[in-house]
């Protein structure tokens, strides 16, 4: 079964997820892996990718930059048909979530999004993906078809290793120019907030369990004694209990503090991806099955409103003992 990976890139840089997708493709042991590069000028990116797969297909056309799904849809469809690819892989990133499902419909293909495992069995495409907020896994299969599309969960697949001999780069003729209905205006970077959470050694992080903005002060007090800062998971930022700049996670910021104290955070995948590199992770949650306990080094199943004030008192006592 021929496998094709659509390379994700932005502002002239290949995204890490592209290499993970190439790794996943290789691990299928389905034969040679092709990478597809679409851009105004795909040559530089194609050269980089040529060491990570067995063939590179490129299409260069001004309308293909920036990587707008609406522009890539007809180009990718054509390239996939040209290549006779049967399984198309993309990262389950914001870009992949925009293009993947629409591409599947265009190809009349089954679609498996956000997969954590994918393999071929008896010429069927099967695998696993997380459901119910990560509390369960679903073993899935796609119905038999001539083409399949799947998006891959970030960090679930080891990136491809480079090889010495670069793959052949084949340039496809540009697709017939189309007037695009959707227009790109620009990229916008979030303005810096009052605190840079990525620079903190200690983060006291609150999730939905903190209950309301009035309770954030409890976390702030402990953070103050530890000379750290308060950060949060997505629901807290969505509700404006803390500014978006305090959000840890895929759409927020990635942090690697010495200590990450997760209070009332269930541990959605997107959150854990942003903090799992912390040196020491301690989680407090009412739910013993909260996914956060899978990445934490220490865990307390309990009510944070009981535990937090007690911890703060103990810390204050330790600090005054220290200063004696």
């Amino acid at each position: 079964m021929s496998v094709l990976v659509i390379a994700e890139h932005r502002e002239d840089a290949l995204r890490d997820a592209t290499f993970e997708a190439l790794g996943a493709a290789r691990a299928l042991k389905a034969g040679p892996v092709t990478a597809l590069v679409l851009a105004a000028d795909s040559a530089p990116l194609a050269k980089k990718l040529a060491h990570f797969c067995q063939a590179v297909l490129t299409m260069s056309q001004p309308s293909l930059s920036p990587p707008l799904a609406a522009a890539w849809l007809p180009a990718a469809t054509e390239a996939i048909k040209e290549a006779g690819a049967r399984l198309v892989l993309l990262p389950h990133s914001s870009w992949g979530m925009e293009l993947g499902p629409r591409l599947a419909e265009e190809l009349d293909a089954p679609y498996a999004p956000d997969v954590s495992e994918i393999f071929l069995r008896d010429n069927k495409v099967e695998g696993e993906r997380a459901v119910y907020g990560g509390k369960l896994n679903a073993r899935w299969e796609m119905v038999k078809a001539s083409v399949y599309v799947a998006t891959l969960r970030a960090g679930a697949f080891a990136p491809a290793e480079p090889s010495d001999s670069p793959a052949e780069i084949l340039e496809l003729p540009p697709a017939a120019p189309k007037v695009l209905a959707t227009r790109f205006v620009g990229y916008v970077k979030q303005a810096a907030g009052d605190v840079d959470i990525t620079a903190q050694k200690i983060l006291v992080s609150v999730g939905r369990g903190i209950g309301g903005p009035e309770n954030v002060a409890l976390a702030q007090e402990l953070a103050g004694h530890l000379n750290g800062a308060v950060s949060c998971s997505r629901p807290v930022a969505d509700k404006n209990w803390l500014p978006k700049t305090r959000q840890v996670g895929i759409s927020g910021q990635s942090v690697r503090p010495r200590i990450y104290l997760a209070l009332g955070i269930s541990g959605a995948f997107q959150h854990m991806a942003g903090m799992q590199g912390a040196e020491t992770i301690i989680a407090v949650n009412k739910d013993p099955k909260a996914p956060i306990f899978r990445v934490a080094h220490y865990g307390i199943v309990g009510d944070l409103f009981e535990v937090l004030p007690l911890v703060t008192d103990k810390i204050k006592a330790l600090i005054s003992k220290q200063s004696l």
Partner: protein
Amino acid sequence: MEILVCAKQVPETAEADIKISAHGRGIEQDDLVFDINEWDLYAVEAALQLVEAHGGSVTVVTMGDKDAEDTLRRALAMGCAQGVHLLDRAFEGADGHAAASALAKVAAEKPYDLILCGVQAADDGLAWTGPALAAGLGIPWATMVTAIEKQGNTLEISRELEGGMEEELILPMPCVLTVQSGINEPRYVSVMGIRKVRKKPLDVFDGAALGLESGRTGEAGSRLKVMEYTLPPAGGRAQMIEGMPTEQAAALADILADKGGLR
């Protein structure tokens, strides 16, 4: 603007104990609380804010069992003008493709300017229906939308990328947008407010009424099949701190001190 919002009723998952059913291909529903999918709630609010600013009305559609009517009533109480219930056993177990096939029939009923969905559903997390619906209708789409502004016949939107970055796009109408959580603050509705709309007539359609053969909807019309549910590997590395809250707090404070929290 005439806006159609697609809303799904899902089990509350964040605090719930999700148990796999005996045959492994479903979950036990009895102890679960069902509510409007959080992302779809943001979509309803976004639709209402647009018509409040620009005139028009919002129609809300749900595909689900009889209980899913609660989701419609909530959206109506928030201010949606019309509710549509796709009610048919044949619709159950739909993936994004099968769901979009049914929803496209509703979307084609009226010349809607805009169709809003949430980014994904809290149960299956497929993030598939919105773009598939755009494909079925042959109209532009954008996902992960964090801001929508109407400018004449177009919509200026922001969509979320990674790491605090966003991209700004302009789409013509009609189009499909999937809305990201945090885009707005969904208005509160009281029990009283929901009671006020409980008698409002809904448009109820089954597969036959939509002109859909049963093989094209629900599990039968799906291309992604769930074979079974399993529990993720238990444990992980967490050393659990047991004892009374005071003992747990003392242990936690010691860990914080030990790992350099007091420097």
